[in-house]
């Protein structure tokens, strides 16, 4: 690269960093004070872009119309954020962290369908900014004026935020609440309005981040998840709750991406190395490296254990006789299904069983393991691709069923080694990063994985070709997998795992190597998810990269959380309900995502402990009542 090219790429990086910083700063601010990881932050960004587009159409493309629209879009998103805080988040601050995530994820679904309903599926590109539509010559090259504006915007917002946080009473209270919100409350600070204010400010930043993009990037329905994963990476790399860290990380990541694009393809010892393809994953690689070297991010500090801890999780009781009988009866009923039904019912049931195994394997590391994974689909996908690729290379399908889980297990072995070194949100983000890396390898490696088209023609062996035969295989595979996972939880390994989750120090003191248990659990869960993936591949006959993308991981989380994390069978019910809902609703209703989101929100608000958790509590309270009643 010439010096001029380097300068231009550097400026490109600065311009991209600004928007990234705006979103990430909002996310970080919100997390710092409310301790809520706002999955819907990317959706707020997307709303900002769409609203700015419409407002410009409405006001006209003059300077006032354009800049007024950009600002007003930010303010509208801020108002929306405030409403979300007041009517939704306020009710769930005391709920378990994962349930809060689920609620904000439900918002993602609702906002996405709202945008689809209002703006339709086409990409919408806004006009150029009046007055900044041209280009200036820098080092002999054309550089967009608007990008110069963006380059200034980032540091400007940083300065304004810094002034608000350090020079106003409100900012001082926000920083105090970030450190110890309970103490701030005991000093007379009304957290309610503080939280609303912070959420509104964070939403404003997200909305503005989106609205200033309108001349550069068309508004589309996929921005939400791509922006949120970028913003997560920036926040985690910078350190949760640190605005300065977010700025630094946004710069770092945007620059590295810009240079990857700038370098393009390089031939090295006869091999073509494509740096531009690297942009899909490079931020996740940066994050993985940073987290392993500095587990709390560049400028972050170790998360203190939350001051006011909720009720401790009840110990895992052995399932009662009736529960075991009920499960056996369920299994028998499932075995009888093909006698009465055929065709579509079997396909749906296979799906449900596969996802039940997937969801139990996720529960295995999340519940008893205490490790929240946002990237569990990686192992599902590796299982599917492992099986598919072996079969494509000429091996028998039975070999594929072994190779799939094995590949997933190896993936979990490698990724898990890094992940168990972290905890909490950081661990979750690292799992997401690895899943994204695995996904993008699959997505880009056309020659082997078929790239975005995936693999087709992955059919079971002839003796399993009938739906009924395959149904029995799936039933046997999933039931065995689920049973083995449950059984492990009652083995010494499972007890040690939970001991490590509940009090790592004490577990360490009695000689349990917590980390290696967690690593083991990670691999076991990976194997099980891989089995689910392989079974699903042969059932569908094809594999696509979507089978390991972020939305699939989120599906898994939703299933586990719907069922309730305190209960062993919860993930199974959650998977069944979710798969059935998705199938039934998606076929009948155009806006099924919004319906699903609304159902999830209703469930979260009505049953903050999950469905199975709620039923469990209900039974418990009935038992206590009847035991306490006079004879």
């Amino acid at each position, binding site marked *: 690269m010439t010096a001029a090219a380097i300068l231009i790429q550097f400026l490109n990086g600065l311009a991209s960093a600004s928007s990234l910083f705006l979103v990430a700063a909002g996310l970080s601010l919100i997390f710092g004070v409310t301790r809520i990881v706002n999955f819907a932050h990317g959706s707020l960004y997307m709303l900002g872009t769409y609203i700015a587009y419409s407002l410009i159409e409405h006001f006209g493309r003059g300077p006032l119309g354009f800049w007024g629209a950009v600002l007003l879009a930010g303010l509208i998103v801020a108002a929306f954020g405030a409403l979300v805080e007041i009517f939704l988040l306020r009710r769930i601050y005391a709920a378990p962290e994962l349930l809060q995530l689920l609620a904000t994820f439900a918002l993602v679904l609702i906002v996405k369908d709202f945008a689809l309903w209002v703006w339709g599926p086409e990409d919408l590109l806004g006009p150029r900014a009046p007055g900044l539509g041209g280009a200036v010559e820098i080092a002999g090259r054309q550089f967009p004026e608007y990008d110069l504006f963006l380059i200034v915007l980032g540091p400007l917002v940083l300065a304004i935020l810094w002034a608000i946080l350090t020079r106003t*009473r409100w900012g001082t209270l926000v920083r105090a609440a970030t450190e110890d919100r309970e103490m701030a409350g*005991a000093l*007379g*600070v*009304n957290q309610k309005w503080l939280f609303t204010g912070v959420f509104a400010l964070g939403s404003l930043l997200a909305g503005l981040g989106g609205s200033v993009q309108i001349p550069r990037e068309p508004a589309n329905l996929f921005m939400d998840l791509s922006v949120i994963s970028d913003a997560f990476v920036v926040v985690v790399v910078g350190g949760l709750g640190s605005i300065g860290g977010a700025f630094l990380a946004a710069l770092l990541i945007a620059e590295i991406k810009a240079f990857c694009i700038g370098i393009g393809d390089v031939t090295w010892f006869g091999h073509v190395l494509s740096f531009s393809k690297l942009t899909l994953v490079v931020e996740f690689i940066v994050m993985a490296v940073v987290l392993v070297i500095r587990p709390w991010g560049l400028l972050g500090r170790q998360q203190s254990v939350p001051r006011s801890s909720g009720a401790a999780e009840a110990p895992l009781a052995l399932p009662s006789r009736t529960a075991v009988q009920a499960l056996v009866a369920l299994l028998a009923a499932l075995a009888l299904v093909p006698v009465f039904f055929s065709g579509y019912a079997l396909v749906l049931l296979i799906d449900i069983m596969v996802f039940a195994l997937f969801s139990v394997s996720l529960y295995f590391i999340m519940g008893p393991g205490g490790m929240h994974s946002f990237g569990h689909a990686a192992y599902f996908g590796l299982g599917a691709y492992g099986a598919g690729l072996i079969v494509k290379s000429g091996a028998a399908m039975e070999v594929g069923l072994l190779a799939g889980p094995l590949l997933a297990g190896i993936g979990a072995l490698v990724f898990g080694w890094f992940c168990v070194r972290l905890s909490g949100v950081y661990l979750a983000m690292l799992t997401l990063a690895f899943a994204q890396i695995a996904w993008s390898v699959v997505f880009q490696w056309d020659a082997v994985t078929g790239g975005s088209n995936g693999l087709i023609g992955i059919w079971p062996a002839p003796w399993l070709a009938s739906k009924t035969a395959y149904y029995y295989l799936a039933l046997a595979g999933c039931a065995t997998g689920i049973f083995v996972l449950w059984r492990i939880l009652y083995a010494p390994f499972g007890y040690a795992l939970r001991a490590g989750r509940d009090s790592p120090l004490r577990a360490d003191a009695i000689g349990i190597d917590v980390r290696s248990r967690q690593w083991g659990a990670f691999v076991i869960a990976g194997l099980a998810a891989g089995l689910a993936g392989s079974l699903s591949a042969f059932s569908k006959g094809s594999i696509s990269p979507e089978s390991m993308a972020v939305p699939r991981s989120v599906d898994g989380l939703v299933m586990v959380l719907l069922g309730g994390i305190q209960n062993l069978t919860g993930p199974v019910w959650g998977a069944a309900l979710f798969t059935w809902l998705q199938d039934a609703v998606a076929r009948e209703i155009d806006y099924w995502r919004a319906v699903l989101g609304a159902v999830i929100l209703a469930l979260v608000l009505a049953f903050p402990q999950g469905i199975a958790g709620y039923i469990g509590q209900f039974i418990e309270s009935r038992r206590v009542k009847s035991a306490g009643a006079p004879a």
Partner: protein
Amino acid sequence: MLEVSALNTAYGRAHILFDVALDARPGEVVVLLGRNGAGKSTTLKSLIGLVRPLSGEIRFNGRRIDRLQPYQVARLGLGYVPEERRIFADLSVMENLEVGRQPRRDGAAFWTPERLFELFPNLGRMKERGGGRMSGGEQQMLTIARTLMGNPSTVLLDEPSEGLSPLIVEQMAATIRDLKREGLCVLLSEQNLHFSELVADRAYIIETGQIRYSGTMAELSADEAVREQYLSV
């Protein structure tokens, strides 16, 4: 004026306080004495609303406060100084004080940073120092000053002498007497009988979550048997 009756508090299934009753009047320094784990901190946290009592009545200046949020209780003029100090480490001394600031309140002393620096000259010399870079004694002074910025009429002090050097303990006692002179009512928890004798007018003794003794500080000092039973280690 603080009146507590039949207060019961639990953490989950662990019942900690049993029918605790006590009161503290304006201008009075009252000490809640008890060994480690007796329930002193839990009592004070129940009063300010950091833990929600199961049952019982807490009245502050005649008003029920047992169902209020901590910030509402604080705004009524009941200040709380936690045992672990809980200084905002990222905030400077001045900013820590700012967090505690509340409007002037009728019938209670009005504090400004300047007045507090007269009371705690050390703090005045480190206005811009970060809370995380102060010694234990300085932090203890700051946490009290921060609560006073709310212009409380009554302050709850959880073990103010804990972990301080003898010299600083003397200063702390002088400070509490200063507060009393300002007309404040102080309810403090202590394990340290000697320190209590320096400041308190009346004393309660709490053990396993129950009030076992109540009397003036002078009576308690004279009652060897009670001290032996509840306070010796």
